[in-house]
């Protein structure tokens, strides 16, 4: 039995009939054809599939497509506007915040939510804000730098960015 689902993805309306068990991430990738959102695990650990649902960061493998009914979704493809990179995208490029690039879309979306909630995070807050997203290439160093730099561009003072206590294993 298929169900109707209507969403807005990156400002465009989508209406489809889907199986109730279809994961939102598969809907986005296979039905809506937006393959920038990636899948890196099957237990919601890696965060590669992170998108914004009504402005909130969500791992899109943790929702069914039908649960997105009536919601507004933003994926990595919706971040650049009119050919202009989003400051986070620009910062990831400038600061070498990616290597293989597979975790990057999810990382940028998680960072977008982080900065929406806290426009001038400390490095510790950036680390904590991104702990649901795994990267195996960069050692996170330049990812943290990228988010710090984007915060500055986007108007957050990032004045507290230098503050960083010793790395914990919290």
């Amino acid at each position, binding site marked *: 039995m298929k169900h109707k689902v209507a969403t807005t993805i990156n400002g465009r309306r989508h209406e489809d009939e889907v199986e109730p068990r279809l994961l939102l991430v598969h809907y986005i990738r296979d039905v809506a054809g937006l393959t920038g959102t990636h899948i890196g695990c099957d237990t919601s650990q890696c965060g590669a599939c992170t998108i914004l649902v009504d402005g909130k960061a969500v791992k899109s493998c943790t929702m069914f497509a039908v649960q997105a009914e009536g919601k507004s979704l933003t994926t990595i493809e919706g971040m650049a506007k009119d050919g202009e990179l989003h400051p986070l995208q620009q910062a990831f490029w400038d600061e070498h915040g990616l290597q293989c690039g597979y975790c990057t879309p999810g990382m940028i979306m998680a960072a977008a939510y982080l900065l929406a909630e806290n426009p001038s995070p400390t490095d510790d807050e950036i680390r904590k804000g991104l702990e649901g997203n*795994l990267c195996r290439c960069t050692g*996170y160093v330049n990812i943290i730098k990228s988010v710090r730099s984007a915060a500055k561009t986007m108007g957050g003072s990032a004045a507290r960015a230098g503050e960083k206590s010793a790395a914990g294993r919290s």
Partner: protein
Amino acid sequence: MAITTMIGAKIHRREDPRLITGHGRFVDDMTRPGMVHMAVVRSPFAHAKILSIDPSVAKKAPGVVGVYTYADFKDHIAGPATIPAAPTFVPEKKQTPDHFPIAHDEAVYQGEPIAVVLAAERYQAADAAQLVQVEYDQLPAVIDIEKAMEPGSPKAHSGAPDNIGWDLTYSPETADTFKEAEVRVKERILQQRLFPIPIEGRGLVAEYDEYDKRLTLWTSSQVPHFIRLFVGSACGLAENQVRVIAGPDVGGGFGSKLRPYPEEYLASIASKLSRRPVKWIEGRSENLVATTHGRGQIFDIEVGANKDGTLVALSLTQYIDVGAYQGVFGAFQAVACLLSGGAYKWKHIAARTVGVLTNKVSTDPYRGAGRPEATHLVERAIDLVAREIGMDAAEIRRKNFATEFPFTNNFGLIYDSGDYEKSLDKALSLAGYRDLRREQEALRKQGRYLGIGLSTWIEICGLGPSAATAPAAGVALVESASVRVHPTGSVTVHVGTHSHGQGHDTTFAQIVADTMGVPYDQIDIRHGDTAEGPAFGFGTYGSRSLAVGGIAIRRSAVKVIDKARKLAAHILEAAEEDVVFDQGTFHIKGSPDKKKALGEIAFASYGAGLPEGMEHGLDAVTYFDPPNFVWPFGAHVCVVEVDAETGSVDIRKYVAVDDCGNVINPMIVDGQIHGGVVQGLAQALFEEVVYDDESGQLRTGTLTDYLIPTANEIPEFILDKTVTPSPTNELGVKGIGEAGTIAASAAVINAIVDALAPFGIKHVDMPASPDRIWKQIQASRGMSHDGKEARK
């Protein structure tokens, strides 16, 4: 050609715009007309007889196009020894079990393919895979490698004489080995099994064209040409019938994507049998049981030295958990024996490697492959000696460093260049070593445990010279590149290496731009497609892409300029020796106005009026066979504080001073070090693959059970470098892809052991988790040489 505007510059990566906007092209992003999805039915047991397989119910499930088992594949895939095992430092193996891509009557590891299901939709394939009825008879599983070596052990393969995959002594211990040593220390050092975990797992699309008899295979791989060679030939296809495309984008590899895998053979034949393009995308839980693991070793070492700190002898035996089948390049990990001397001078090194078959997925190279193990054991060994004789960890290193280069080690390997003391000095000064020692002493009085760990690492990379790799690895690891200048001056470069995060598109374009004076954005770097470029490419692993592949590019570019110079001389009506090439333009010596741009020469090269005997076109191919490996090195300093009440480790500082020779793009080099160090640190503190000793079930079967570090677990880094150019190649470059991982685990563990010295603890195994450290502290309370403090 002294043009250097790009080499050494921080150039933004040209691969990034598509990756940051969601326009990467990973295998799972692709669909083909009529494509079906493959799900693999895998053995749930580590070791079992397969009594029967009944696909009838699965075949009737919605969307199912086909269910195939051994019976369907056996006549289409050459066997039974299908998946190869390369010699790689162990040319003679005692047992190489036949490895057919799908189990026949016995499954020998959890995750081994039993059947494949094709269905129209992804979920349908997964559903139907559950409906394949397999009847098993469970057999005893061989899991622990020490038990596996006992004579009465069950066998990993029924009917095998024992579980010994290889047993090779590179140099025996003799009566002389330790004769001159005044002190001797023994230790057992564990190297736990690790998951490589690129964030993109493996995946493929196989499309067999029945009419043309051609196979196209898109696969997430580091070695497309090797996949074409092995998968194609086993499936009865010549190279010119097979096109392998790695990616195009590949989401990391770390060594786990540098061999042919069962699914590549199975999907190719499944496409042929079903006449449909077949997609298979590995889930993470599947990745953890079915993609090769790294490490999985035990080292028994003994080190001998004089009381003044002079190292004398090292004796080691390496036991490697091979898994159920020989890894394709699994024996490469035995290189740990040949590099066990590290950066130091030794009178004697005795080394033996033993490969043990178990009922687990194979171990194969994982970032560093044998070199992290070598560094870890020698850097631990030297600290054990320092502790024994009461010498400072930095001083004992300084005393024993190799200082004359080229340096020939105990196994005849020749280190091309180095200045180990310089990197150590720099690292110590950046860390504030003396102050740290004072702080350590002060804190100990307060019952706080600060530790400082050193790792003065070396590595062998740039695999590799054919003279060494052909006998040792079974394949001459040269590298190819072609450079083509098109009629209007843009340039296409085809390389045999493969980029999956390393930023080759950028680094290689920097080399070409500098060599040819062509604007950076007019240079296209192409890799990963066997239908393009030179006949063979050897792929990316072993930190070889720049030091081998980069030189092939450089030489092709030089060949192109040499030809263009001849043509420029002809057009400018000058003698060739009077033509000067500068920043992409040829001019006559002394007359800078009489000039032609390379683009103009390129246009002319495709036109009429060439000099007598000159062929048309402007392109060149090079296969570069390096005269030696390259030998990066460096010094890492890790500073930790250990909480003696909880056993938790706080990394306060991490200093890495690395030397990879000349640097093409410092931003990319730093990025490689960050990522590499974090993987080494992850081994030291967090990660461990655990199988149940009895049942052989993987107990760390999801990322819930296996802790890979997040942004919250990593320390602040202080990076610096020294530059000691390699004499092995004209760019003076070495490799950097594995350096961080090779160096880091030793630095972290040495720091922890140093912190715990007051408890009399001399060694801590990995992962140094809070519970492991806490237990060791508990065990040592009251037994410390410094009893007062220990009983506090």
